[in-house]
């Protein structure tokens, strides 16, 4: 289990990006984090990844405190961040340097097939389309079999068509080993189609505002009335998160009109 206990972050310039964020995330759960821009989503993810230290509070994975990058935690960024001097296959195998070459090669081949890029194994990253490059990044992060995979707006730079395709693909890959997924997004559709639970954050300082369980079976039909209902409740919560007159954790109903992004 991943436990976030009152995680706060104040940057050296005085910006309080994150205030007392607490949550518990089960092994294998898919959690979407949604919220206006600048409400500390990336800051939170970087603290979980161990890339930045929280100013106070703790991140623990299976009772182990996380303060630097951990073998059990992988991260995928908005940009693929492939190493341009390595072939697609070598990029995917980047995190497997400790394994014997034969084993590494075998895992890479399997991952390449799994993301549908077997014929691109020897291509350079610059020869890939945006969607293909992000698939390689997903494969690179998944191939060491992390227990937790963090994704920071991984599909937001892609066109709508490719984005849908990769969302389905991510679920497909997730089903293989069922790691915990924590997905930052600003796309309500994406949150509802992927997540078991949506955490809504509110800004200044970034903090948890609301949680919405998405009790939908998989695969999910994006056009079903129930899907629409969940989307609407996430949107409503987002609107309220930006409405300053709404106090934290307030249950009173009524859709706000604020533009949440």
């Amino acid at each position, binding site marked *: 289990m991943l436990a976030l206990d009152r995680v706060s972050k104040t940057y050296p310039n005085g910006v309080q990006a994150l205030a007392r964020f607490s949550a518990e995330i089960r092994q294998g759960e898919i959690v979407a984090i949604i919220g206006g821009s600048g409400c500390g989503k990336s800051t939170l993810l970087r603290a979980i*990844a161990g*890339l930045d230290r929280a100013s106070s509070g703790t991140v623990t994975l299976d009772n182990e405190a996380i303060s*630097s*990058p*951990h*073998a059990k935690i*992988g*991260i995928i*960024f908005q*940009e693929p*961040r492939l*190493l*341009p*001097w*390595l072939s697609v296959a070598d990029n995917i195998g*980047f*995190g497997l*340097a400790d394994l014997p070459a034969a084993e590494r090669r075998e895992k890479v081949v399997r991952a390449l*097939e*799994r*993301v*549908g890029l*077997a014929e691109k194994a020897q*291509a*350079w*990253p*610059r*020869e*890939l*389309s945006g*969607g*293909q490059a992000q*698939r390689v990044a997903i494969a690179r992060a998944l191939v060491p079999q992390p227990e937790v995979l963090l994704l920071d707006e991984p599909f937001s730079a892609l066109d709508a*068509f*490719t984005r849908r*395709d990769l969302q*389905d*693909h991510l679920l*497909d890959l997730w089903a293989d080993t069922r790691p915990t997924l924590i997905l930052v997004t600003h796309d309500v559709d994406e949150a509802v189609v992927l997540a078991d639970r949506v955490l809504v954050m509110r800004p200044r300082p970034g903090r948890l505002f609301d949680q919405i369980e998405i009790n939908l079976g998989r695969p999910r039909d994006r056009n079903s009335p129930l899907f629409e209902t969940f989307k609407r409740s996430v949107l409503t919560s987002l609107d309220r998160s930006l409405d300053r007159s709404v106090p934290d954790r307030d249950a009173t109903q009524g859709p706000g009109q604020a533009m949440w992004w």
Partner: protein
Amino acid sequence: MISDAPVLQQASEPAENVAAPSRAARYARPLLGALLPLALALGWELVVWLGWSNGRLVPPPSRIFATIAELARSGELVRHIIATLWRVGLGFAFGVVAGTLLGAVSGYWSLARRLLDPTVQALRAIPSLAWVPLFILWLGIFETSKVALIAVGVFFPVYLGVMGAILSVDRKIVEVGRTFRLSGFAMIRRILLPAVLPAYVVSLRVGLGLGWMFVVAAELIGASEGLGYLLLDGQQLGKPAQILAAIVIFAILGKLTDWLIEVAAAPFLRWQDAFVRVKGA
């Protein structure tokens, strides 16, 4: 797998398209550039041959090549070339080692940069030829002062190139290394070195160019052998053909050594250059 990604699978394959322009087109372009100098050379040859000019101050190509052939036959040419190559090679080696080490230290370690870089930048502001009298006083008139001058010329572009390249390594890619928990040494080997290499090769080529420039200066100041000596000798004895012969050989050697660096680096830079990749295919 393919069926669930019809859009992606159709995505473009740029490399194949680059391969399309034919071999003929690839060779035609440099030939086009050779047209003007060739025409000028032939034209001048013709002018002298027709007797419209005696070609004493500007000898025609045939006379320049005759001079080269003569120098080659007597074995003198080889002696001069070896002397010059030796100086450039030695100066280049010292300059590259010093520039790489100091550039890497300054780029990697910000305390060293704050300590070192202002001094290096101040020294860089001095026109390098101004060192000549001092080097001669310190190191004598012979080889050492020449090699030192060349090394100074090579040092600065390499230093700046290495430091700048390290400073401009993409922080986002370094972060990828961090998420995979690379140790300091692995980070250097697997992230920094490959990221820095393209700019390093460029700085080596710039440094080599300056090395050739400074060997001429060094040999003009005083030498009993070397291509620069041929230049000076040609001037003092009024032999323009010998001067031009030395210039031609400088050009050939300069181009050749530059090409050697390019070829040596090519296997490591394949990821960068579509052209090389197509050629290898």
